[in-house]
């Protein structure tokens, strides 16, 4: 009886969401094994072995896992899946891409984007753009679950797990990695920043020049609405919402954002929401804790000055 957590390696280290998934995994009170796959894994393995609550770190190393592809990792997981009662991962882009296929191959359901585990097979997950929280009773023998990182705290690091090497099946080569195009930003990451300041399409060409100085002062990540991304004022990976990044910072500042339900779905769990909008009836004010009815083009420079 044990839980398998699928880790994710980012460069040399584990992604923060892996720590959050491990916290979720402790819910069952069963032994936890963490699968670390890739190439050149020494640092990530050492790290994983110190995470509290982990029994074993399964080390799966292969050249073809250097840039992991869904099909290859799925084949790998299938070689050990029958040893586990629970298979769990973070609801990251890779987690979401991988987990349902593993569930299908095991002829079982997968419960995605879980924000609370209420009992060993009872979960809460948001649906309808976060307007509904669905309580789910999963009847399957094997629980296949992905968890929303922002809903779980990160596991501590005072463990001492054993590292065990496992064999990796060859690649089926139905897919092949070609390249990645990463955006380099000096700013903290959206999904883990303490403060996020986000702009809507009304910022226009001044998106960067208005938000950057404030983000700098607040050590904040920058976010954007889809309308803003579509209009070409902000990069796609800044999109916050139902179909963008889901965030839960201590402080979220929405500037010139209407508050469409798809956007709200991604910011609901923020501790404090501040909205600046010149329309007193903008829906965002229904969700905000603090509001300022003002023109953003004058309010942002004032805010910048006030933070000196």
């Amino acid at each position, binding site marked *: 009886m044990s839980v398998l957590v699928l880790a994710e390696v980012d460069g040399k280290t584990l992604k923060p969401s892996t720590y959050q998934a491990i916290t979720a995994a402790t819910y069952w009170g069963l032994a936890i094994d963490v699968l670390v796959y890739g190439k050149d894994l020494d640092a990530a393995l050492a790290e994983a072995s110190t995470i509290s609550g982990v029994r074993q770190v399964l080390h799966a190393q292969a050249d073809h896992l250097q840039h992991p592809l869904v*099909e290859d990792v799925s084949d790998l997981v299938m070689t050990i899946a029958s040893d586990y009662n629970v298979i769990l991962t973070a609801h990251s882009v890779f987690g979401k891409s991988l987990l349902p296929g593993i569930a299908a191959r095991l002829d079982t359901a997968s419960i995605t*984007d879980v924000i609370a585990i209420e009992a060993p097979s009872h979960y809460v997950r948001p649906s309808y753009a976060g307007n509904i929280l669905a309580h789910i009773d999963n009847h399957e023998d094997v629980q296949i679950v992905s968890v929303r990182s922002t809903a779980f705290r990160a596991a501590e690091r005072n463990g001492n797990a054993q590292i065990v090497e496992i064999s990796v099946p060859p690649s089926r080569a*139905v897919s*092949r990695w*070609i390249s*990645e*195009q990463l955006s380099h930003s000096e700013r903290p990451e959206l999904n883990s920043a303490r403060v996020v300041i986000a702009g809507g399409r009304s910022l226009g060409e001044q998106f960067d020049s208005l938000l950057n100085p404030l983000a700098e002062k607040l050590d904040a990540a920058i976010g954007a609405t889809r309308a803003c991304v579509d209009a070409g004022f902000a990069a796609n990976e800044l999109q916050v919402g139902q179909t963008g990044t889901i965030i839960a910072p201590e402080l979220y500042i929405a500037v010139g954002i209407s508050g469409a339900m798809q956007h709200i779905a991604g910011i609901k769990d923020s501790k404090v929401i501040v909205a600046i909008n010149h329309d007193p009836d903008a829906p965002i004010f229904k969700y905000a804790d603090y509001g*300022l009815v003002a023109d953003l083009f004058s309010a942002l420079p004032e805010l910048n000055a006030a933070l000196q």
Partner: protein
Amino acid sequence: MKVLVAVKHAIDYNVKPDIHTETGQVDLAQVKKAINPFDEISLEEAVRLKERGHVGEIVAVAIGSAEAKDSLRHAYALGADRALLVETDQPLQPLAVAKLLKVIVEREQPQLIFLGKQAVGEDYGQTGQMLAALLGMGVGTFSSALQIAEGHIVVTREIDKGTETIALQLPAVITSDLRLNEPRFIKLPNLMMAKKKAIETLAANDLGVDLRPRFTVTRAVEPAPRPGAVQFATVNELVKQLRQTEVLV
């Protein structure tokens, strides 16, 4: 080549659903429905591939009750060549949908299978990945750009910090993201024409697939509402408040 596009008749993305007081479940009976926006993007992409000469036939497949024909007509109006309804009145979970689609894929033998990255509504986001796994095919999730090459397809995918480009052997499953394209505006004559086109209908129960639900949504609740914003008249008052509550350090 032939392309299959899965089409879900989903809750209209602008509608905020209500919870039925007696059942404690989301009340979908009277809710406005429309084609899932991600499926519309898939169709648009299939049509563009056809316009570029890569695709011969576009088959749209919906799974659901007879009302899903509305979304199939929408698919016709956008440019689908054939439409197929796998009919059932039973609500289906992702694994059952994937299994039904597998039967249709085996029958139609498409080279490319499009699904949306998620259906608005339950927001499960699983069916494409499940279908690919059941078929043993490669999957390109969160696709924002596609290029057809000899025997394979090059897919640019949205990842956490940018994009990634992969090649998938054909046949393959693609799930569409918002940035893949912007669906064209449907002209009225196309809609009128779509009304006259035939929709082939199969009964889901006849396809030999295990449709039983694997989990139960025991209840649906609305998240606690927020009290609404405390309004400030000036930036300085706002900053003062944020400093007082220690959110600004």
